[in-house]
């Protein structure tokens, strides 16, 4: 019974995806091509990266509204350090950065912002919604301050490779995202840490009484979300060859949508990384398909909203007894 049900859950979004693909293939002969496949894969890679982090956060009964801003700030930091280096006037020092160094710095900054989120949430019991809402504003302001409102462009061939290069027949962003997904699937299914995330989301007090260090797990989860936002930010910066101060605006909604369409429960404890990947695919295929069909931009929004509703309602009709 349970098994059939959980299989159905998995098939759920796959079916929605298939239906969508079939419709698009009928409507446009350009849709079902390898090239368009890579295209969509590359386009969703950033959302998948972020949404993997978001999935972990939501599984642990949290939410992270700040992913877009963290993405922008980390990307800007990496780009700025790469292009201009870091001047420390106090000790009269200038530090140059290699591509690798700049990326590392961006990721560290993303992790630090996420850590701050986690710290606020665990130490001061600030509700996740509020803590990350504040971070949304703060990190955006910080990005503006760091960039002065100007994009940082001209980042060089090596850096551009991350976002635009190909490796063994697959685009680099897809490689990076694939690695992130594989690691996340292993973590959620096969490690203590992953199990603890589910346990906390399922029943925090039972998890605490089983000796799980709730705060530590939560802090890690938010830190990972920050790191993955940074990875997304670096891919985006590299693809555009430019760190945009307004990058990532309202990405949090896209990301939460991917997670929820993928069947993860917003009340925690239930869901999967692969579901999220499917959710992001549905959104990505839809976005790309609507453009491919040259649907008017006005109608695109209406259609997107309706498809999200239909996807979730289909899901609900199959599981009437869950909250």
């Amino acid at each position, binding site marked *: 019974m*349970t098994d059939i049900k959980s299989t159905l859950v998995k098939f759920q979004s796959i079916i929605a995806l298939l239906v969508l693909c079939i419709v698009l293939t009928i409507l446009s002969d350009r849709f079902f091509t390898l090239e368009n496949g890579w295209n969509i894969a590359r386009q969703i890679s950033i959302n998948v990266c972020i949404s993997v982090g978001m999935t972990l956060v939501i599984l642990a009964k949290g939410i992270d509204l700040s992913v877009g801003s963290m993405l922008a700030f980390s990307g800007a930091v990496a780009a700025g350090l790469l292009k201009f280096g870091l001047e420390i006037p106090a000790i009269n020092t200038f530090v140059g950065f290699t591509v690798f160094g700049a990326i590392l710095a961006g990721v560290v900054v993303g992790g630090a912002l996420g850590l701050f989120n986690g710290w606020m949430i665990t130490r001061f019991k600030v509700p996740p919604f509020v803590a990350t809402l504040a971070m949304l504003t703060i990190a955006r302001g910080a990005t503006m301050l760091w960039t002065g409102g100007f994009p940082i462009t001209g980042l060089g061939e090596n850096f551009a490779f991350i976002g635009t290069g190909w490796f063994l027949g697959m685009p680099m962003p897809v490689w990076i995202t694939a690695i992130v997904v594989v690691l996340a699937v292993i973590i959620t299914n096969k490690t203590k840490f992953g*199990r603890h995330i589910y346990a906390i989301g399922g029943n925090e007090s*039972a998890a*605490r*009484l*089983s000796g*799980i260090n709730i705060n530590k797990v939560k802090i890690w989860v938010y830190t990972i979300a920050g790191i993955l936002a940074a990875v997304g930010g670096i891919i985006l910066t590299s693809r555009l060859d430019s760190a945009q101060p307004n990058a990532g605006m309202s990405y949090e909604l896209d990301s939460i949508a991917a997670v929820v369409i993928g069947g993860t429960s917003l009340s925690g*404890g239930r869901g999967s990384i692969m579901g999220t990947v499917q959710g992001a695919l549905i959104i990505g295929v839809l976005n790309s398909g609507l453009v491919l069909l040259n649907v008017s931009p006005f109608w695109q929004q209406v259609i997107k909203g309706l498809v999200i509703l239909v996807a979730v309602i289909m899901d609900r009709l199959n599981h009437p007894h869950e909250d």
Partner: protein
Amino acid sequence: MEKKPGIFLEAQNITKKFGGITALNNVNINVHTGKVNAIVGENGAGKSTLMKILSGVYPDYEGDLYLNGEKVNFSNPKDAMKKGIAIMHQELNLIPYLSIADNIFLGRELHNALGVLDSKKMHKKTKELLERLNCNLNPKTLVSELRVGEQQLVEIAKALLEEAKLVIMDEPTSAISDSEIEVLFKIIASLKEQGVSILYISHKLDKLRLIADRYIGLRDGNTVGTIENAKEASKEDLIRLMVGRDIKNIYKKDSVDFGDEVLRIENICLPKVINKSTFLLKDINFSVKKGEVLGLFGLMGAGRTELLETLFGLHSKIMSGKIYVENKEVRIKSVRDAIKNGIGLVPEDRKEDGLVLGMEISKNVSMASINNVVKSGFLSTKLEADLSKKYIEALKIKTPSEKQLSKNLSGGNQQKVVLAKWLATSPKVLFLDEPTRGIDVNAKNEIYHLINNLAKKGLGIVVVSSELPEIMAISDRILVLSDTRITGYFDQASANEEAIMKAAVV
């Protein structure tokens, strides 16, 4: 259908399915007017489900309900209320951040012609109701600030608010003390005098026998018979009606030779968080030996749960005192420390604190000892399945497989899963807080035997219970806690109900 004299409500051929599970299968019962109709049955027999149908919670079922001979069909709880059916559910159904009065009048608020609430009148009425229950709480108090027992009193008050013709009580006494039970029984008696019918469910058979007029037995969703004259039925008859066979009821712990001392605590104190000069626990000392079962008795709110939690590292920042495990002093600053030092706690509220209900049995079992199922850095599904299978077998957990979600198990089986979780940590001492609350006789017995077997294997066990007969049956020694202190100490020889009770009300 014709009105039958003496029968207030008749349920015919009631069948109720949840997905694939048949909770009720062609059930027939009669509720006699002005009598206490007791329904008995094991956990999961379908008692609460039937009550929910009678009170309009589940409008979709097969079969017919007749109220005074008239066919009725309740589409929601309000319909049933209008027909004079009041119910007190098994689970507490209160809104934590509303006041007592707001809760009691929820869904049937008093208001004036403009729709504005009449708070004064509601408070006054609440006060009267509470006084009827010998309870002098302020009607404005938020329910979240009440103890569980007090909340149960509010539930009872809620069921008494309107002049109902049928009052359904599903486990009304699971959390209230003996003196409060007495008050309740008096109220039930007076209701009976007014011709009100009562449907009463309880697993506390001894208490049940004090008030029941007739018994209706339910087993696996089927009606298995009634005993019309309760006074003539013995406890054994009652158990046979429930379980379908005899159970050796008089359980007495095997006496074994105790081993070395496994746990000793000295001068445990726990101040209140808000006012640090007053205490929840003061100067508690005791010790437990290997193979010994120490019973911890006390009335509701005596501080027993707090004591176990303190020893388990949940209040490490404010507690003081010393804890020795196997004669070595240990510092327990967190649950992890407690586990490392061989202490396990089966908490009082298995749904809130014991289980992740949405998770498989196997994952719950391994939760506190997850390192045992890690193989070269990763969780091993096989090791995990083996671990849980071992306990499913050892504890006779009734389930189709270890992959079953915990929320699909009956209460007793859920309790066993929590037990399994702690046994898997290979503890030296096990704390059990009210391990049999809400559990039927049969499952209770199984748990008693389990405790006995664990002790035999050399565990030190501390059991908290509010039921005197239970604690006397299963303990080697009994400590009584009252008003933050230890007020009594009894061994097998000196223990008798009167003395223990006396210590508990100091």
